[in-house]
């Protein structure tokens, strides 16, 4: 098998368009459309707060979704039986400090900082940390193959849980 062709490095604003679109879809709870930003072999991982470099095959993490589990997570969050998120919170994803790396094979590594703010039932909570994405080009558009969310918080305690998609 020959190495996949190296891809063009997208501009920062092209990448920002994708990340901002994702943030907008998550804030709008349009999770079905959100899924379409991801490839069929995608992965969404949130390591534990005490092991930010955690590897989901050997370490306990908070979230380790392949595409199938991402789909089932969306199904759960769309239902009225996801009690923690029914009714849905008001969320605001702020994405900033976007850095686009050198393409690595067919993947473009991207780093960004984020704050997700959730308010629900009289309580505000925030998650803060860094995103690491691996993007690929599919039919002329940028798509997300993986998203890793490393939390800066020393524990999840101020937010209690991570029931929303970060």
């Amino acid at each position, binding site marked *: 098998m020959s190495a996949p062709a190296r891809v063009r490095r997208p501009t920062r604003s092209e990448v920002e368009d994708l990340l901002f679109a994702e943030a907008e879809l998550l804030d709008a709870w349009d999770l079905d459309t959100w899924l379409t930003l991801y490839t069929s072999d995608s992965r969404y991982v*949130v390591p534990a707060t*005490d*092991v930010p470099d955690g590897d989901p*095959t050997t*370490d306990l993490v908070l979230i*380790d979704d392949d595409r199938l589990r991402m789909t089932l997570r969306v199904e*759960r969050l769309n239902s009225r*039986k*996801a009690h*923690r998120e029914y009714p849905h919170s008001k969320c605001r994803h702020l994405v900033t400090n976007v850095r686009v790396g050198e393409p690595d094979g067919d993947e473009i590594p991207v780093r960004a900082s984020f704050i997700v703010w959730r308010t629900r039932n009289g309580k505000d909570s925030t998650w803060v940390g860094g995103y690491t994405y691996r993007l690929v080009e599919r039919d002329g558009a940028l798509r997300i193959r993986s998203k890793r969310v490393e939390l800066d918080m020393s524990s999840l305690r101020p937010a209690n849980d991570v029931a929303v998609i970060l």
Partner: protein
Amino acid sequence: MTVLDGLVGTGSRLVVEEPERFRVHRDSMMSPEILAEEHAKIFEHNWLYVGHESEIANPGDYVRRRVGGRPVFMVRGAKSGKVNVFHNSCTHRGAVVCRQDRGNAKVFQCFYHAWTFDSEGTLSGVPDREAYGGTLDWEGLALRSVARVESYRGFVFCCYDPEVVGLVEYLAGAKDYLDLIIDAAPADMEIVRGTNEYGMDANWKLLVENSIDGYHAVSTHDTYFKYLVALGTDLSVGVTGTAHDLGNGHAVLEYEAPWGRPVAKWEPLFGEDAKASVDGLRAGLVERFGEERAHRMADLNRNMLIYPNLIVNDIMALTVRTFVPTAPDHMEVTAWEMAPREEQPDVRQRRLDSFLTFLGPGGFATPDDIEALESCQQGFTSGGVEWNDISRGMTREPRANDEAQMRAFWRRWRADMDRVDRTVNP
């Protein structure tokens, strides 16, 4: 507050048992006075879980913990090899001596005036010691160990009360269940790297109840069961079993459940690749323990409370969970996953998956438990309703979806809170 003037007999005033009815007063979950009394009468006098020996395998390994709300640290002594649990406070003027969550250290140096202690707690260095003119009480100024420290099969507990009964006697019937769970592993058990540190805006006793509550599963965890079904689990087995009072406030549910168990029960969700290894584990259990005990180990689930605040749930994964109240309506939860050392990678992967999808605060079930407990706490503040009802199954042999296990907890809580020879810290 009518029920609460004075501290005598608080337990009996808040927990009322009649032949067919068991009630708990909601003041027990809302009042700051009760929380202070719980600290003085429960957390100061019972064995509390600190951590697992596998977390400090090597000499000098340490972990920092909050146990019963107090900062302590557990370190394996470099000379003795034994597990020490120290109050995390410098004997000079008080600063926290261990300031990292985990690591390995030859010495612990207090940053304030640079006194140094070794992993056995011995004071080993004092800058400008000449200033004391040879009168420094080196021995008396060693790090202070928590009054009692003992471990059972790797589970390390401590107690702030030197008079407490020995750990094995305290564990009572819970000891046999710990044995069953630990024996089922083909090798030693270890705590997996990665901690779930989350919180809930609810009284800590609500999590005691919830952790051993078989009745809420169907209604609260609908989306988790749908997830299992989508991946091929057959739910028709249901959740059938029994509840046992294990003495001293400990209790357990033991029941058959539909999901796979990495211990030795394969199911489609694990994938065909893992079938051979899981079946092999089962054959090993039968060989070592015979059909009947192997069946319990492999097929039955256990949700166990070790009073007052340790939960060992041997379900679709093995969880060790403890929690401490920081306010009447808030608790900090810490949960770890336990697994056999040198587990087959594919089985370990299934175990990790099972843990985070059901038990983790980012999974498909725990967030809904958090919502349920916070919802109860909010409901309490409405007033108008004084008592919680915990009578389910009182008139029959208790089943796994009854409330006998909660009554076991509350009876011990009542007895502890009724004691008059324990003073409340100001």
